[in-house]
C-alpha cells in the first residue's frame, strides 16, 4: 500500500465540533456590548469597562473554542478509535491548534478594534504592542488550557486552571503571575513593560503548543 500523507481536518469540521460553545462566546460578546453601550449610560469609563470585559471573555473564550476540538482523544468512548488512526502531532495537533487560534484571534482583535474606534478618547491604548500583548495572552491561555487538559485528560481541569490563572493575574495585577501577567493590558503592572509580557506569553504559548502536540502522540498515556 502506498504511504499516505497526513492531512489537516477540514476547517468546517472543526467549526462544527466547537458546537454550542461557539454560540456561547458570541452570545457573551453580544450581551457585553449591549449592556455597555445601551444600558450603562454615558459614563466616561464605559468604553474602558467594555474593552476590559471583551478582553476577559476573549481570553477565556479561546478555551471553549479550541478544547472541544480535542475532546475525542480523551473521551473513553472515542479515544481508542481516534488514537488508532495515523494521526500525528504536527497536523492533528500543532497546526490545527494554530489554525483555530489564528481564526479566533483575528475575530477578537477586530472586535477590540471596533470597540477602540467607537470609544473616542475614553479607552485603553490599542497599538501594535497591545495587539501583540492581547494575542499573546490568548495564545498562552489556549496553550495552557490544552496542555493541562491533555495531561489531566479532564475538560473541567482544562478550563479551570487557565481561568484561575486569568483571575489571579487580574485581581493581583500580575503580583503572583511572574512573567505571565495575562491581564496586563486591562490591569497593568506599572513597573513592567507590555513588550516583556507579550514576548513571554508568545514564547511560553509556543512551548505549550509544542508540548500539547507531543502529548497527542503519546497514545499509551492518553489510553491510560
Amino acid at each position, binding site marked *: *500500500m502506498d*504511504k*499516505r*500523507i*497526513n*492531512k*489537516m*481536518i*477540514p476547517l468546517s*469540521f472543526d467549526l*462544527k*465540533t466547537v*458546537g454550542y460553545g461557539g454560540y456561547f462566546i458570541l452570545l457573551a460578546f453580544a450581551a457585553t456590548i449591549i449592556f455597555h453601550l445601551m444600558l450603562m449610560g454615558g459614563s466616561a469609563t464605559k468604553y474602558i469597562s467594555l474593552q476590559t470585559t471583551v478582553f476577559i471573555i476573549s481570553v477565556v473564550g479561546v478555551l471553549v473554542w479550541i478544547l472541544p476540538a480535542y475532546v*475525542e482523544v480523551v*473521551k*473513553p*468512548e*472515542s479515544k*481508542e*478509535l*481516534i*488514537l*488508532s*488512526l*495515523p*494521526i*500525528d502531532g504536527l497536523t*492533528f495537533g500543532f497546526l490545527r491548534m494554530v489554525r483555530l487560534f489564528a481564526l479566533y484571534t483575528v475575530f477578537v482583535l477586530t472586535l477590540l478594534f471596533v470597540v477602540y474606534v467607537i470609544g473616542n478618547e475614553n479607552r485603553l491604548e490599542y497599538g501594535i504592542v497591545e495587539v501583540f500583548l492581547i494575542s499573546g495572552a490568548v495564545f498562552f491561555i489556549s496553550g495552557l488550557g490544552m496542555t493541562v487538559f491533555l495531561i489531566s485528560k479532564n475538560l473541567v481541569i482544562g478550563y479551570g486552571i487557565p481561568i484561575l490563572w486569568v483571575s489571579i493575574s487580574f485581581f493581583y495585577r500580575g503580583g503572583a503571575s511572574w512573567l505571565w501577567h495575562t491581564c496586563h493590558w486591562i490591569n497593568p503592572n506599572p513597573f513592567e513593560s507590555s513588550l516583556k509580557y507579550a514576548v513571554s506569553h508568545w514564547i511560553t504559548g509556543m512551548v505549550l503548543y509544542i508540548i500539547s502536540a507531543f502529548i497527542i502522540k503519546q*497514545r*499509551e498515556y492518553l*489510553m491510560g
Partner: protein
Amino acid sequence: MRLEIEGLSKSYKDKKALDSVNLFVSNGIYGLLGPNGAGKTTLMRILAGLITPDEGRVVFDGEDVLKNIDNFRYKIGYLPQEFGCYRSISVKECLDTIGVLKGIDASERKKQIEKILCEVNLSDEYKKKVGALSGGMRRRLGIAQAMLGNPSFIMVDEPTAGLDPEERIRFRGFIRKFATNRAILLSTHIIEDIKNNCDGLALINNGKIKQFNNFEELENMAKGKVWKMVVDSDDFHKIDGKYKILSTNTNANGLEIRIYSEVKPSEDAVAVEPTVEEGYLTWINA
C-alpha cells in the same frame, strides 16, 4: 496477507495480561474467543499501536510492525469495543473526517464513502447525526470506518455485544462480506459469533492463547468428557453441584442433561459428541 505474532507479552503491575502469545493470521475471518478479562482487548490494542508490549514481535508481510507502527496504522482498520466518536456531526462527515485522518485523497474518499455506506445499509442515514443512530447502526458505521482506506487487516473488538439478535446476524453478514482478500480478527466472548462466521479461531484465557486449525480440533478437546443422561428433578438436584451441567432440555421422558465429567458420571450416562461450546469450556477450565 500474513500477520505473525511471536512471544507477545504485556503486564500491568502484577497482572500478566498477555503471556508469550503466538498467533498466525492470514486472509479470512479469525475468531479470538475468550472470557471477559482474558487479554483480548490488550492484544487488539497492541496490534492497533495503542499500547506497547513488554516483549515479542508482530510481523506483517515480513515487516516488523512494532518498529514502524506509524506506517502500520495506514494498513489496518480497527473497530474498538467502544465506538462513540464525533456524535455531533453527520454519518457522512464522520466518515469523511476519519478518511482525512487515514490520509485518503478527497476524490477517493468520496468514492469509498458512497460505496461503503451502501454496503452497510446506511445510505439513507448519511445525513443523520452519529449521536442519533441506534446501537446497531453505530456498529455498522464502526465497521464502515474500519473499511475506509481498504486495509488488508481489520480488527473488530466485541462487535456484537449489546446488539439484538437480528442486528447481530446482520453484522455477521457484513463481516463475512468484507473478509474477501483481507484478514479480519474478530474478538468476542460470544461463541455464536465465532461458530457461524470464522475460518479459524484462537482461544485466549489469562493471557495465554491457543490457536486451532478448525472447529473439530476444539470440539475434540472435550471428547470422552461430555455425557448425556435423562433424570427427574430429584436426581437433577443431586447431580447439580457434583458435576458441571452444560445444558438442560426438557422432553417427554424427563430432563435431558449434558454433563462435563472426566469419568462416566452414572450407569445411565452415554458419551456424546461434544460441541464447540463444550470444547471451549474444557479448554477454559483446563
